[in-house]
């Protein structure tokens, strides 16, 4: 198997605060291969955005990557100089954020903002750059790109702005696109359009996508592989099919149970409680206070990510083992986590 495009190993990010060091990300590992979509899922405060930001050295101060390795191809991004990181950003790795209005500069025309990317990384300018911007805008499905090129961000609607952001991100044909909640601020019909656009662009351009989201529906539509994060740690990792069909971590199963499903009238069975404050993460497995399956050992020791044997042949891909970190599943490998009741409990 060839080397992954992006590999993150045992990433630890600390935020020193007045109340002590907050470990926002504790030992996260994941790979992104060429042309695939990897989704990082979790609730707010689980560290998924910090993970994405640390890829490009954008962790907001005083936050700091204290341990781990991030490699893009053969290059270590943690050892890269600020100049080299600036070269990589927008060129080999591009990023789109949740709120397109705050990520676009309100005082410049959108065409000029995309041109700037081309000028910085490709030294293209003038008529050639303008023609390229028009091509990019029409590629992301903006009607009348010639007219839109001279408009300011506030003149565009939310969906249009997100398309401009995508056009800007794809300007240099990046190998990896990091999309942090790209459709959360959009209406469902516009979200469908933007997701369709991302899928189409990925198919035609072969860009790998690291998708940060909390919406499991979006994950199901987009992702080849999924990383479920909880309180700064990876709870479960595997192919989308395997995780959606047979979650091997009580948190993942709890997320699914919290979703109102179309065509089902059953009452929701959400996870109790809420995500713990990052300053007061519980010891042991960080999910144990909310976990219906918690064992005594969960309070003391941190579970390792262990491989789960797929039950049927099509559940797992050999190259990507389905792993999860749970003592209960270690002991009861065949438990149906959807069922909610502990088998064998009195």
């Amino acid at each position, binding site marked *: 198997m060839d080397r992954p495009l992006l590999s993150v190993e045992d990433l630890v990010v600390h935020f020193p605060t007045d109340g002590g060091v907050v470990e926002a990300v504790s030992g996260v590992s994941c790979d992104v291969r060429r042309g695939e979509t990897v989704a990082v899922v979790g*609730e*707010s405060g689980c560290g998924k955005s910090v993970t994405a930001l640390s890829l490009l050295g954008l962790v907001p101060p005083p936050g700091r990557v204290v341990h781990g390795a991030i490699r893009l191809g053969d290059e270590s991004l943690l050892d890269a100089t600020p100049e080299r990181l600036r070269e990589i950003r927008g060129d080999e790795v591009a990023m789109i954020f949740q709120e397109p209005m705050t990520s676009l500069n309100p005082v410049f025309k959108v065409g000029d903002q995309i041109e700037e990317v081309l000028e910085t990384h490709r030294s293209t300018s003038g008529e050639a750059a303008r023609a390229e911007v*028009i091509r990019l805008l*029409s590629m992301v499905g903006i*009607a*009348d*790109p*010639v007219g839109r090129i001279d408009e300011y961000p506030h003149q565009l*609607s*939310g*969906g*249009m702005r997100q398309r401009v952001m995508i056009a800007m991100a794809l300007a240099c044909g990046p190998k990896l696109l990091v999309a942090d909640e790209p459709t959360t601020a959009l*209406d*469902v*019909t*516009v*979200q*469908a*359009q933007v*997701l*369709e656009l991302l899928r189409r662009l990925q198919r035609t351009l072969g860009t790998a996508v690291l998708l940060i989201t*909390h*919406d*499991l*529906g*979006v*994950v*199901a*539509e987009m*992702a080849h592989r999924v990383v479920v994060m909880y309180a700064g740690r990876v709870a479960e990792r595997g192919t*989308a*099919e395997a995780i*959606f*069909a047979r979650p091997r971590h009580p948190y993942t199963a*709890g*997320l*699914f*149970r*919290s*979703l*109102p*499903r*179309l*065509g089902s*009238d059953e*009452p*929701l*069975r*959400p*996870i*109790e409680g*809420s*995500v713990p404050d990052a300053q007061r993460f519980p010891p042991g497995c960080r999910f144990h206070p909310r976990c219906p399956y918690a064992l005594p050992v969960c309070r003391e020791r941190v579970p390792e990510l262990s491989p789960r044997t797929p039950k049927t042949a099509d559940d797992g891909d050999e190259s990507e083992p389905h792993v999860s970190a749970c003592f209960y599943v270690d002991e009861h490998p065949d438990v149906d986590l959807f069922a909610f009741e502990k088998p064998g409990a009195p």
Partner: protein
Amino acid sequence: MTEPLLRVESLTKHFPITRGVLSRTVGHVRAVDGVSFDVAPGETLGLVGESGSGKTTVGRCILRLARPTSGRVLFGGRDVTTLKAAELKGLRRELQVVFQDPYSSLNPRLRVLDIVGEALVVHGIARGADVERKVAALLERVGLAPAWVHRYAHEFSGGQRQRIGVARAIALNPKLIVCDEAVSALDVSIQAQVINLLVELRREMNIAYLFIAHDLSVVRHVSHRIAAMYLGRLVEVAPSPRLFAAPAHPYTRALLSAIPVPDPRREHRHLALTGEIPSPANPPSGCHFHTRCPAVRPECHRDDPPPVEVEPGHTVRCVHAHELPAGVDWYDELSRRIERATLDNVTARERAPDIAPREIEWLDAWKTRAASHAADRAANVAALRERSRNVGVAACALGVALVCAGQAWLGSIVTAVAYLGAVRHGLRRRSSTDAIVVLALLLSLRIGHAVVEHGRRTRAEATLRALSEQIEEQARLTSVLPERLSDLGFRLYPIFENGIPSDPWGRAFVYRVPGTNGRRFDLGSTGPDGVPSADDVGIVARKPAAASK
């Protein structure tokens, strides 16, 4: 049928768009444009639509947080829109609201006791220690610890704050709660907890909800009936399972197909709904949805069809839904019609040669623009060249005139600059020729200058010779050869006194002062020794007649 708890009749709300210092009204945002529906006691009506469809404004009009432009809102038989301030207080007791943002809807300076208890005190339900007891009970009811009554809002997480918001809403035992995106801002697991809480409360207290949200799967879960809104109008109202089983309006169909389903095995097939919701300040004519409708028919641009009831409790506002066969197969017929219209539109678009694909369209538009831009530029450049040529020629002429007037260097520079300026704007293009032309011009100017100078010198020498002859003639007559002009009895000062320098024979002189290179004369200086030398004598310019005066 039981009397509805809430009846909304052709509700409209227009917001004026004002402009200028005088706030002139230049138009209206038609946020709500004739909406009618009922909510029965204990029922939940879901109101869905994209942002900008007016669903929040409907909620605000019902709560009288906004005054409707027209239409009636009957709550328990009373018209909310005409209630006086005192009567509103009674209304508020029965009609409550939970807002979307649990951060901005709780006053950060108040304790939970005050936030939740305020309504109890205002409405005279509880007093003193009783308030705390009641608030504690309410907190317990919404799943918070009763001991937290003295905490402030910032001490709670988002989900807990939303529970406080719910506690505040149920404090007065209301009959209807408007939930405006009440769970949209919450995380999935917390959202599910709050939804379950709302559903439990409905069962216990027989509360009716107007559940405004954009997340269809959440709305589906809590609502008995769902109303879909588009640009201020209700396009479809149906019992919740029916809306999902048999969505009749093309907009509802598209909306449902756009929901991402959390199942990676399901093939994602979204209905093509292009573009975004138009501005309610300038809604499309006819059916508001026709600009985005895949099954649009020509009459949709013109007519806005009235809502039809396709089955009991299921109304649709679409031209396709008219004159459907009664009975169970209405939905098959409707789907067939919509699919046929969609297919017709697609084939019409493919067949029509005048409708090019979007790529070609923008390319053509761009080419046209670029061409017209280039033509404009060419015309501009031509006009500019014309003008600069005229200016350049005029300036060259001025320069030559200056040279002729004796200002050789200034004239040369003016001519050269004028010529170069004209060249810069396109008389000629090649700079090598420019250089040659400029050199030639300067050379010819220099030669011209030398010629003029030579003539002047010749004339001056002739004058000096004539002067010497006169002097010699006078000397012959007087047999004295003077060394100086003054010895002849002429003084130079008096000569210049009239302002016109002339020699004793009435001819005007121009004296040049050595070392000043071109200055004509200076009355204080008459040459090195008072004798003008050949170099000091310039052009004889004036006639003696002028001097005689």
